[in-house]
């Protein structure tokens, strides 16, 4: 009989594991963040055209990557939860959503703060920024649907459906916005086309992206533990938790 490892990753058995993993991911995130910041401020050269403002790229691009990456991972976990009826996978999806929404917000915020000095406007109808905005609405849709349904099991399944439908639409939205953008503004310099990607800049962005990734995992694990306790509060293993005495 195949070992159904979904069964073993039950919330009860994963709770302590998550607890032990969190410090590791946080410290990895901190180290990578420090390295990334050092590169972005002290190693990467000043940009010829954009001066120092381009350094915002070291947060904007990694956050944008993470916002897309987290949505896809969230939809995958939600899909697994729907298909295999494993509660833990759905909990992981719900634990990821707020962090993903935060990353999207950071991408939008830093995008507009970067657009202001470069193009003089706080909001640029650039293809990538516009689809980030729509991605933010997809995150809010997922979170508010789950918040509006009381029964956790149904909330998981409903969330999974909207996440899967959303993930199919993300590429479609991106390409339709790109099509729309080129139609209206012509091939204007898109926000992302910063000048030739100097090597340290690329490394800086990759290191920062890794830092954000480690951070997102740590944040997800923390929220996951809270969700597990909230949902399993009637089960015996939660009542016997050592933490309750502290």
């Amino acid at each position, binding site marked *: 009989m195949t070992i159904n490892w979904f069964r073993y990753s039950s919330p009860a058995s994963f709770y302590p594991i998550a607890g032990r993993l969190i410090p590791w991911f946080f410290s990895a995130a901190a180290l990578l963040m420090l390295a990334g910041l050092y590169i972005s401020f002290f190693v990467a050269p000043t940009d010829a055209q954009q001066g120092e403002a381009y350094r915002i790229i070291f947060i904007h691009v990694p956050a944008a990557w993470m916002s897309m990456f987290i949505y896809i991972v969230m939809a995958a976990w939600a899909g697994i939860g729907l298909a295999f*009826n494993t509660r833990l996978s759905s909990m992981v999806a719900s634990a990821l959503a707020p962090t993903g929404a935060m990353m999207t917000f950071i991408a939008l915020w830093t995008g507009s703060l970067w657009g202001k000095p470069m193009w003089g406007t706080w909001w640029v109808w650039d293809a990538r920024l516009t689809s980030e905005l729509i991605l933010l609405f997809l995150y809010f849709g997922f979170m508010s649907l789950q918040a509006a349904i*009381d*029964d*956790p*099991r149904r909330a998981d399944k409903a969330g999974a459906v909207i996440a899967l439908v959303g993930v199919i639409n993300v590429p479609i939205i991106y390409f339709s916005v790109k099509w729309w953008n080129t139609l209206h503004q012509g091939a204007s310099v898109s926000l992302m086309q910063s000048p030739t990607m100097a090597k340290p800049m690329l490394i800086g962005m990759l290191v920062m992206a890794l830092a954000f990734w480690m951070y997102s995992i740590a944040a997800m694990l923390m929220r996951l533990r809270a969700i597990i306790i909230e*949902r399993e*509060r*009637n089960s015996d293993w939660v009542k016997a938790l050592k933490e309750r005495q502290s």
Partner: protein
Amino acid sequence: MLAIIKLECVRGERRLFSNLSFEAAPHTLLEVRGQNGSGKTSLLRNLCGLLPPAAGAIQWCGKDIYTIADDYRSHLAYLGHLSGVKDELTASENIRMSAVAAGLSASAEQIDAALIRLGLRDFRDSPCKALSQGQRRRVALARLCLSVTRSLWILDEPYTALDTAALAVIKDLLESHLEAGGIVVLTTHQEVAITARATRRVELGQ
């Protein structure tokens, strides 16, 4: 043959029942008893595949009902708390359309016979929003008359809002269905004597 193996059902945070096992062979009347909130309705919705159980399995003729989903439903008729009657449509339209949507044959004669049997003949062409709650239940029971080809009947408190005349009709309906080899699973609070070759009882919420 309906078999339930170590069934467990959770509603929201509460575990309604667990480790529930029983069987229902043809010609069997299975009564599900228990106070309000003991999970009777949830159990019935588990049995007809509407509500996936938290644990355990439900088998029809040895096969899990979720693997043979559509085929299982071709042997099933379910009457829930909701009568499944649309207000805008007339009684005969309701019966015809819901029967055809459920894949049952519903000729005009069959519909008329069912309406007459349930005493709804003169409401045949009036919109159902004019009918009382009891009459709507009769329309739902009329659809049951057309489901004689379905061997498994799952009825959630079928006797509510019915007067003595309608009770007699449903009693007769159930008995002929059981006699013909069908299985009836029902929940009720009233004591209605139904003669059946085998009567089983499942008590929930001890």
